[in-house]
Each structure stands twice: as structure tokens, then as C-alpha cells.
């Protein structure tokens, strides 16, 4: 049963907080995101700066970088994901316990960035793992990472735990481990996970050519 917002406000002024279990659980999750401690390139330097005293990511409850994927629930993919590194990133994602979230930080993690046409750079980590928040920039400033973190917190606060549109981690039929790509003779095999990502299917404007 929904609570009358006015009544909730009145109670709050008296020092009584009324909320739902869903709101309480989401509040707890959003307020203590523990990121996985790993960096791939220069974005990681900005990520480190965001945790230090000047930007102080601890204000948002995300300062406890965990060296083990078992204890982390946020993966910040900070930097260029090479094809040689991609299977390890997917494996780390698989080792994290649900609920887990992914921030793709910087142009390289989103799309391959300036190295997109390189022979050894993955064209975006979203080809293999689901990304919740993408932060553009090369590298993004620490403020941008904090904004991405706040965006993720807002996203978590809106998660449904029941019903047909419930969050992935609340769904018993949700996906389990994602397939880890193999090293092939010319490229990763497969080059992307079709359950997670598919090439954009756009029609080209004939007048443009």
C-alpha cells in the first residue's frame, strides 16, 4: 500500500521515517557501493583522484575499493580494454556477486575511443558485459565520475524488486555467468555476446552517399 506523501512528510518532521522495504533495500545498496579495485589505463588515474581527499568519493559511500571481486558490487571499467584483457574483465564480472553494476569510464571503455580501429582494442566493453552508466571523456574528470556514480545511485533507487519489470538480480531467471570470449587465431571468439549487445542496425541515408 502506498503511503500518502504528505503524511510521510509530517511523520518525517516528527522524526519518524516511513518507507517500503524496497526503498530501504535500494537505499542501502545505493549508499554503499563497493567498487572493484582495478584500472586499465589513464582513466584509472582519474578514478584514483576521485577517491582522494580533494574529490572524496567517500561522500557517496563508494570509497571502499575491494581487491576481490567477491566483495565488490561495482565494476568501474576505467581505461582501454584490449582484446587480450577482455576475457579477464568478463571473468572478473562473473566472479562478482549479484547485485552488481558496471560503469564504463572513458571513451575507450565505451567504444574503443581513439584506438577503435586498432587491431588489439575491444570496441567497447558493452559488447561482453551489461553497462549501467557510461561516462564520456578522455579521460573524464573526477567530477564526471562522481556524476556517473550519482546517476547510478539514482538508477539503483528506482529498481523494482518484485513484478515483471524487476531488476536483474531480483529475477531468479536472470542470466548467470556470461560466456567468456576465447582467444581466436585472428580475433576474440565470439567478437561480442549477442545476449548483451548487438551491432546497431541502422539504415544508411541514401542521399548522404
Amino acid at each position, binding site marked *: 500500500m502506498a503511503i500518502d506523501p504528505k503524511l510521510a512528510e509530517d511523520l518525517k518532521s516528527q522524526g519518524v521515517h516511513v518507507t517500503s522495504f524496497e526503498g530501504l533495500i535500494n537505499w542501502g545498496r545505493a549508499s554503499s557501493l563497493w567498487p572493484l579495485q582495478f584500472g586499465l589505463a589513464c582513466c584509472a588515474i582519474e578514478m584514483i583522484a576521485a577517491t582522494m581527499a580533494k574529490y572524496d568519493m567517500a561522500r557517496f559511500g563508494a570509497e571502499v575499493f575491494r581487491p576481490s571481486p567477491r566483495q565488490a558490487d561495482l565494476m568501474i571499467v576505467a581505461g582501454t580494454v584490449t*582484446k587480450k584483457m577482455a576475457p579477464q574483465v568478463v571473468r572478473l564480472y562473473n566472479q562478482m556477486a549479484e547485485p552488481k553494476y558496471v560503469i564504463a569510464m572513458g571513451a575507450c571503455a565505451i567504444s574503443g575511443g581513439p584506438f577503435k580501429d586498432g587491431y*588489439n582494442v575491444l570496441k567497447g566493453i558493452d559488447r561482453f558485459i551489461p553497462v549501467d552508466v557510461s561516462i564520456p571523456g578522455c579521460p573524464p574528470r573526477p567530477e564526471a565520475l562522481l556524476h556517473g556514480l550519482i546517476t547510478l545511485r539514482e538508477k539503483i533507487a528506482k529498481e523494482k524488486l518484485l513484478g515483471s519489470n524487476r531488476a536483474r538480480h531480483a529475477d531468479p531467471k536472470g542470466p548467470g555467468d556470461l560466456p567468456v570470449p576465447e582467444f581466436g587465431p585472428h580475433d576474440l571468439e565470439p567478437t561480442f555476446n549477442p545476449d548483451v549487445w548487438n551491432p546497431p542496425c541502422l*539504415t544508411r541515408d541514401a542521399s548522404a552517399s
Partner: protein
Amino acid sequence: MTPDLPAILTRLHAALPTAAIAHLRNPSPSAQDSLLVAPESLVAVCQFLRNTADLDFDLLSNVTGVDWPEPAKADAVAVPPEGTTPPACGFLEVVYHLYSTSLRIGPLVLRTRTTDRAEQVHIPSVVAVYRSAEYQEREIFDLFGVRFTGHPDLRRILMWDEFLDHPMRKDYVAPDDYQYEPTPHDAVLEKTKKHYPARVEI
């Protein structure tokens, strides 16, 4: 200080009479000439340059590779300018930059060439003379496909072990995993046409 190549070449010829070494001019504005060494005499040349007291090239700062493919038929019709010879091609080249830290001389540029680009791609390793060559020779093996005979651990260093290609070769073809871009042009537009057919007006 740049090394005195003619003097070094004279001494090399005197010390190693059987070694095939040539003075290779660089016609570009940098005018950084080099010594072209036959692969079979490369290790002896390196040993001489390092162990001779008044040369003392003790530092191998850089090893890199160059791919010189055969020109395509369409390119071959271009006539070289008067008085110049067209560059030799159809081989892989390995370039070494030597320095003498005690005498402050360098870089002395050594080049050596494989016979062709397919089968005869063997160059003797200089790891026994300069230990710093180990990782760089692995990188050249990885990216250019030069086989260094006598290398203690010749594995790929950047790409994974299962990888078969050599990406820095001119004729390397990257995997065709093109993805739509909002403003394609030039070569990218050609790829777009191939992967995304034009919209048919109904």
C-alpha cells in the same frame, strides 16, 4: 654526438674481413646514415662494437622492425626521380640503435634484412650480446613475424599466443567488425556501404 660512420666501417672491415657491411645513406633531411649488416655477421659486429674499448657501444637502446613489401603492380609504374635508385623492397628489416654511454656517442644505427617476407625471415638474436634486446625482439617477432634464431624465449609479447597474424605488416587485414558511425566518410563510408545498405524509398 653522432658516430663517425666511415671510420667505424673501416675498422669493422679490418676486424671482420668476411662480414658484409655497407654504409647506407639516408637521403632525407635528417641524414641519419646507418650500417647495413648481413644477418650472418650481425652478432660478430655487435660484439666488436661493444667490446672494443675506444668504441664501447654498451647500450642497445632500441630495436624495431620495418616492413618493406613488394610494391603493388599499380604502384610499380612510377618512375623514380632522376639520379636516384628506387628503394629495395620485399623483405623485413630490423633496426638497432646503439649508444656509447661512456664516450657519449650515438645513435649508431644498424640495419639487417631478411631474405623475403614469407619463409626466409630468420635473423640471429643479439640477446647474448645485449640483454635489453630480449623483449624488443619478442615484440618484433609478434608484430612483424621476424624469427630470431638463438633467442632464449621467443614468444608473442603483446598479442595472445593463439594469434596467427603479424599486425604491423603492411598487408595485415584487420578483422572485419565494422560498427555504424554517424558521419562516415572516405574509407569508412566504403565500409558503411558494405555493411549497411542504403535505405530503399518506398
